């Protein structure tokens, strides 16, 4: 399977065409083809994973540094153990003996390439490059995609474009498979763009409503903006790395100093733009929350687990370029880590003020992507990839669970239509809880292990400041998830009708993902000797000399303490006080450091809660003595006042200051263009053609004369 990995994307690609042509005639509208095809790729991916684990270590790689490397378990069994220390739960943790070798043996990647075309004496190849990283990504995508397919058969049961939906899902899965198996940057670009297209189609699945259509366009254009960087980066690397698109060759050239410093920095910066666009990093993160206009399973698959991590994948895959280009090994500070850290904090803060459960999860995703990018920025490669893997599981779970909730209450609004759902939807509640705790990073769920490795890596690689940012991020994550869980599942039910638990096609994927969210963390924990990390090690990482760190109990204790503090705080704020108004009084004296977050939270409710409340309260009390009619009048007046103040903010701050700047720029451009427009912009194609040909003729003339 490692040799013939091209079969995996081929299956889903064929499935796409089959669904498109025959789907409508089938009894289940083509969904059976999609589910079967993705199920087949899941089996094949798992088989590929088995083969990879089974593969002999034949490739010797020189270490870049003398750091301690975690060894594979078979080697470790024979090595003298370093000793044992008690861990959190009393289980012994095996310390890994220091590795004295200069070179480490790893599994050699499996490559298969074909000539695509030859031009100018260059043989342009496409093919597959399968290593542990690619296999891990294949399995991740296959698991999530399969479960999302199963989930969708019920969730979109009576949808009017049911068949096209499954066709697009198949094509999307193909794109992701192509990206992760590609041996060249061209192949990766192909998969990357295929996903962009499918993301556009699926966000705008219900395009009859204007906001959905707008969101789809926004997502497409925003990611395309970043993609310019990808094209530029690939082009620079093609010429800089002696005319090759081969990713392994590019990494090697970058690490061995065969690429000039300037070209490397330019390429790394350009590729970082692509990462910022695709992985929704600050400042291009705005498309991701809007993309929640698509069906919920799509959000789970594309905007949580797979497509948005394509940027992170690219970072991890072309790591040699970033490592050298941004000098990540030096420690202290670099742009990648900065982008990730800023995104992490900004998005987590925004997650506090959302009413829409999917928006909370969307900002949470942005924030976690920031975590991954920051991890890559601080040189914690293995931890970042591991976090990508675990995040796919629990964020996929959270999104699907939110889909299950909305299936029952027909809304995404946590404040208006949810609350108290734990009695009505026990399975959804339990799985959502598991997902939230895993996301928050509570021991021993998946998020704990991966988050902890990132924080540890940041500290030991000399990026202490970013470790603090990571801890703050973890704190915020735990707190906003507490709020989200409280609003959705606890308190009194605020919606209409009687919600009921979803059917098996929806709860099945939830339970599966919940089990995975608990379990996958152990794959790269001290209990398994960092088994996964050893599997995904590749030549780039080892040549760069990226350090693998052993699990550290004090660091884990610190991060756990932070998370528990946040959860406790969330419990106090949201669970103990029935009314949100009480929160300010209780939290202000108790928690000075929390003020910023609370203020952030209250900004959203400033108009509806504090301002209207304080105006309405005293005045209405005074008016009560006069007349009952006056109350109405005053209440109305207060309402009008609050509306006016809201309008004032909208008019002057939002429309005036922000839009004014944008409009001003546009107006300036349009006025200068106005005079030209009369002559040039006639709207007639042939006139445009004449200008085009005229310009080319002039250019040709200039060439003939001057060259």
């Amino acid at each position, binding site marked *: 399977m490692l040799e013939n990995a091209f079969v995996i994307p081929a299956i889903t690609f064929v499935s796409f065409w089959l669904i498109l042509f025959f789907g409508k005639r089938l009894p289940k509208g083509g969904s059976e083809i999609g589910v079967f095809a993705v199920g087949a790729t899941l089996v094949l991916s798992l088989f590929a994973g088995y083969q990879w684990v089974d593969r002999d270590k034949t490739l010797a790689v020189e270490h870049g540094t003398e750091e301690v490397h975690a060894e594979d378990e078979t080697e470790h069994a024979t090595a003298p153990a370093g000793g044992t220390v008690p861990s959190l739960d009393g289980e012994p943790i095996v310390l890994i003996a220091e590795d004295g070798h200069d070179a480490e043996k790893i599994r050699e990647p499996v490559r298969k390439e074909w000539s695509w075309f030859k031009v100018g004496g260059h043989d342009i190849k496409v093919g597959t490059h399968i290593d542990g990283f690619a296999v891990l990504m294949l399995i991740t995508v296959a698991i999530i995609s399969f479960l999302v397919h199963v989930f969708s058969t019920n969730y979109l049961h009576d949808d009017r474009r049911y068949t096209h939906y499954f066709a697009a899902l198949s094509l999307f899965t193909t794109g992701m498979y192509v990206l992760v198996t590609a041996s060249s940057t061209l192949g990766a670009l192909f998969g990357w763009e295929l996903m962009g297209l499918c993301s556009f189609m699926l966000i705008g699945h219900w395009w009859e409503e204007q906001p959905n259509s707008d969101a789809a366009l926004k997502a497409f254009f925003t990611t395309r903006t970043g993609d310019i960087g990808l094209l530029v980066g690939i082009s620079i690397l093609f010429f800089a790395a002696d005319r090759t698109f081969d990713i392994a060759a590019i990494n090697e050239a970058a690490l061995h100093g065969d690429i000039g410093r300037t070209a490397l920095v330019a390429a790394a910066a350009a590729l970082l733009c692509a990462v910022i666009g695709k992985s929704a990093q600050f400042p291009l993160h705005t498309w991701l929350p809007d993309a929640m206009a698509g069906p919920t399973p799509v959000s789970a698959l594309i905007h949580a687990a797979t497509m948005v991590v394509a940027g992170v994948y690219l970072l991890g895959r072309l790591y040699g370029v970033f490592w050298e280009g941004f000098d990540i090994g030096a420690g202290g500070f670099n742009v990648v880590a900065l982008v990730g850290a800023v995104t992490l904090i900004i998005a987590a803060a925004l997650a506090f003020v959302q009413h829409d459960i999917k928006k909370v999860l969307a900002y949470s995703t942005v924030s976690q992507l920031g975590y991954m990018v920051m991890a890559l920025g601080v040189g914690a490669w293995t931890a970042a990839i591991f976090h990508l893997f675990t995040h796919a599981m629990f964020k996929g779970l959270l999104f699907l669970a939110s889909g299950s909730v909305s299936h029952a209450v027909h809304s995404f609004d946590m404040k208006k239509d949810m609350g108290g759902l734990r009695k009505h939807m026990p399975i959804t509640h339990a799985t959502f809880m598991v997902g939230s705790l895993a996301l928050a990073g509570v021991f021993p769920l998946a998020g704990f292990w991966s988050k902890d490795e990132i924080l540890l890596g940041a500290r030991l690689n000399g990026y202490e400041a970013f470790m603090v940012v990571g801890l703050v991020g973890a704190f915020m994550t735990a707190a906003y998830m507490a709020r989200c869980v409280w609003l959705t599942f606890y308190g009194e039910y605020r919606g209409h009708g009687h919600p009921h638990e979803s059917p098996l096609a929806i709860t099945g994927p939830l339970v599966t993902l919940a089990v995975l969210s608990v379990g996958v963390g152990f794959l790269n924990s001290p209990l398994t000797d960092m088994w996964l990390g050893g599997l995904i090690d590749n030549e780039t990482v080892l040549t760069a000399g990226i350090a693998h760190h052993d699990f550290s109990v004090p660091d884990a204790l610190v991060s756990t303490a932070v998370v528990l503090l946040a959860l406790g705080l969330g419990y106090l704020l949201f669970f103990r006080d029935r009314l949100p108004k009480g929160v300010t009084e209780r939290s202000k004296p108790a928690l000075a450091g929390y003020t910023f977050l609370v203020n952030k939270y209250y900004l959203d409710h400033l108009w509806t809660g504090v301002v209207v409340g304080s105006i309405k309260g005293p005045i209405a009390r005074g008016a009560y003595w006069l007349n009952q009619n006056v109350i109405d009048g005053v209440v109305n007046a207060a309402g009008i006042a609050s509306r006016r103040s809201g309008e004032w903010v909208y008019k002057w701050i939002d429309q005036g200051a922000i839009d004014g700047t944008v409009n001003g720029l546009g107006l300036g451009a349009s006025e200068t*263009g106005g005079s030209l*427009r009369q002559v040039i*912009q*006639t*709207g*007639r*194609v*042939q006139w445009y*053609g*004449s200008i085009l*040909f005229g310009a080319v003729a002039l250019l040709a003339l200039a060439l003939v004369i001057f060259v």
Partner: protein
Amino acid sequence: MLINQFLLLGAVLFCIGVYGVLARRNGVLVLMSIELILNSVNINLIAFGHLWGSESAVNAQVFALFIIAVAAAEVGVGLAIILLIYRNRTSVAFDEVDMMKG
């Protein structure tokens, strides 16, 4: 081998094509003119291919075949557009289609 005559033919065809694209009002004729331009390019390609020897001649011919295939697809799309314009306006005169005006 002298290829001047072929290049001349290509140039003449190209100019006729450009004239047609820019000056004809009828949409169908504009499409036909585009075909002329593409064919003039094909003639040039094959002529230059012969100039550089037999191997590149084959390459050039393959390239020309690709262009013919792409041109066929392009005509398909173009005719569909013209058909839609005709349905909406009962005319295929290109100077009346000016909705792109900014």
